[in-house]
């Protein structure tokens, strides 16, 4: 894979992030209400508001504020949270690892479950098994995360079984069993949300590959179907799945917000809901910027893996 390809991708990722930072800043500044009113409340005197605006630098022109914020963000300084009175980067740092754990486990579980099912559905296309998998994935896409989670709580944390805790968190260092019990339902919810889409896309990717000329050639030259599938079709079929997995990462982060809120899980998602509800704008900005950066990074990673699996992509891009 040529370095030029990766560089180009890196550049476009950075450009996306720059535009994104502008949007985040615009959303939290151009719209009415600012951090000063958020801190002091509706009944603050104009003098107090002005004092805090000067302290926070909110009296400067917007372009200067944006430049200052961006320059800070590049150094890892995202300002001070209005509600925690702590640097935003510190507050986020306390939560981000927990969310990443959820995301990593979910992605691994979803890939392990959805990709094989999607491949099976493609191979058995039009048969009863395919129809079952398709219908199941349709249900999975249509039932929202905030419905799945309470239902799981109802079944697994509810009175008859009471297998798992319905909310909260125990650090891994304290009790590994407690940790496992507390992340079981959140990750199960997220996995159920994710596998539906991934399964569908894997299926349609594999169907395209299986209908392609080179697979027909492999069949015509008398290769057993197993070999055609494992040695020829799978590699190209998987590139679809990887792209979809990276794109689903964004969707996953939306779901993480909801799931963390439901299970009172101390992660970035719950933090951002808290920040929005309390109008802690520096915290909202920082968290949104981080989420955007992670998503852009995930897509870069997917491009890279995609290029490894399919050299033509890199050559033609």
């Amino acid at each position, binding site marked *: 894979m040529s370095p030029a390809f990766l560089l180009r991708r890196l550049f476009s990722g950075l450009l996306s992030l720059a*535009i994104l930072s502008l949007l985040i800043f615009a959303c939290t500044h151009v719209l*009415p209400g600012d951090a000063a009113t958020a801190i002091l409340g509706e009944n603050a005197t104009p003098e107090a508001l002005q004092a805090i605006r000067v302290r926070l630098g909110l009296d400067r022109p917007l372009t200067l504020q944006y430049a200052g914020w961006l320059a800070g963000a590049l150094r890892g300084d995202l300002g001070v949270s209005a509600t925690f009175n702590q640097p935003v980067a510190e507050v986020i740092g306390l939560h981000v690892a927990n969310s990443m754990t959820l995301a990593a486990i979910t992605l691994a579980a979803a890939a392990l479950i959805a990709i094989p099912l999607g491949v099976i559905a493609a191979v058995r296309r039009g048969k009863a098994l395919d129809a079952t998998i398709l219908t199941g994935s349709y249900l999975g896409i249509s039932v929202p995360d905030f419905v799945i989670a309470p239902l799981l709580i109802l079944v697994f944390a509810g009175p008859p079984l009471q297998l798992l805790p319905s909310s909260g968190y125990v650090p891994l260092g304290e009790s590994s069993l407690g940790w496992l019990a507390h992340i079981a339902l959140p990750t199960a919810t997220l996995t159920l949300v994710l596998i539906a889409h991934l399964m569908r896309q894997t299926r349609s990717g594999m169907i395209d590959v299986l209908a392609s000329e080179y697979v027909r050639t492999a069949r015509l030259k008398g290769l057993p179907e197993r070999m055609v599938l494992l040695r020829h079709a799978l590699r190209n079929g998987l590139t679809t799945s990887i792209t979809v997995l990276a794109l689903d990462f*964004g969707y996953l982060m*939306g779901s993480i*917000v909801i799931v963390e809120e439901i299970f009172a899980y101390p992660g970035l998602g719950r933090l951002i809901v808290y920040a929005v509800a309390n109008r802690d704008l520096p915290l909202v900005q920082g968290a949104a910027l981080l989420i955007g950066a992670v998503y852009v990074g995930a897509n870069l990673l997917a491009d890279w893996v995609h290029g490894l699996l399919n050299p033509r992509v890199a050559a033609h891009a």
Partner: protein
Amino acid sequence: MSTAAVSSKLRDPRSRLGHNAYLRIGGALTAAVLLVAVLGLIWTPYAPSAVDLLHRSAPPAAGHLFGTDQYGRDVLSRIMAGAWRSVSLGLAATALAAAVGVPLGLAGAYWRGWLDTLMMRVIDALLSIPSLIFALLIVAGLGTGHAQAIVALGIAAAPRFTRVVRGAAINAAEQDYVTAARARGETTLYIQYREILPNVWPPIVVEASIFAGFALMGGAALSFLGLGTQPPAADWGVMVRDAQRYVSQSWSPLVAPAATISLAIVGFNLLGEGLRDRLQLSERPADE
């Protein structure tokens, strides 16, 4: 139909699975949801906020088909009363997304050039933020509430809408009838809205129907997070949020609105898929 179109039609797995059923089921579900939403405005079995302390957390029975919640309020009545707020949120957000996306998409496809390139770069960047997070950002600026949720979801979906419209219009803008219209001196607005738009509405309608389902889900999610509809007003998201805390006492206040939301989403999605099939559009690309 070209040979390519025919072969892709043959390869379409859904034509074997009786895909026309999508349109019927989706249409019926959507119609039912709309009917309930309108009916809920004028009639509900009980007053939706009528408290009945003697029948709190009652299981489903003849008197209360979906049971009662922790205050003894009839769950069915609350679903019906909240339907309009949930459904109108989905539809209004979709309308807003289309109102932004159609003019931008048409203009980009018609004029092309650096402004179009810039717009597409910005859209790519906007699509790199998860739409719920995007909506949360806007809510952070605008504050919480039903109208704010509509704006947040509509704006968050506008980039995707713009891309769909532009993608559909870009071919149409190069057709002979556009050249002809230009040659006879029609205004650019006339060409965009009277010549191009009528030829590209199928993908727009499909996208709108599918998005209406997602917007309904997103609106319920915002309400669920306490950032959309504010109590004492209730939509389906608020109902799920309230019921979640009392789930050990009774399950029907949770399951009933949850199932309703899911059915409504399925309805809009199936309607979109069915329309796509009926209008003979190809499946959306893998990145959608």
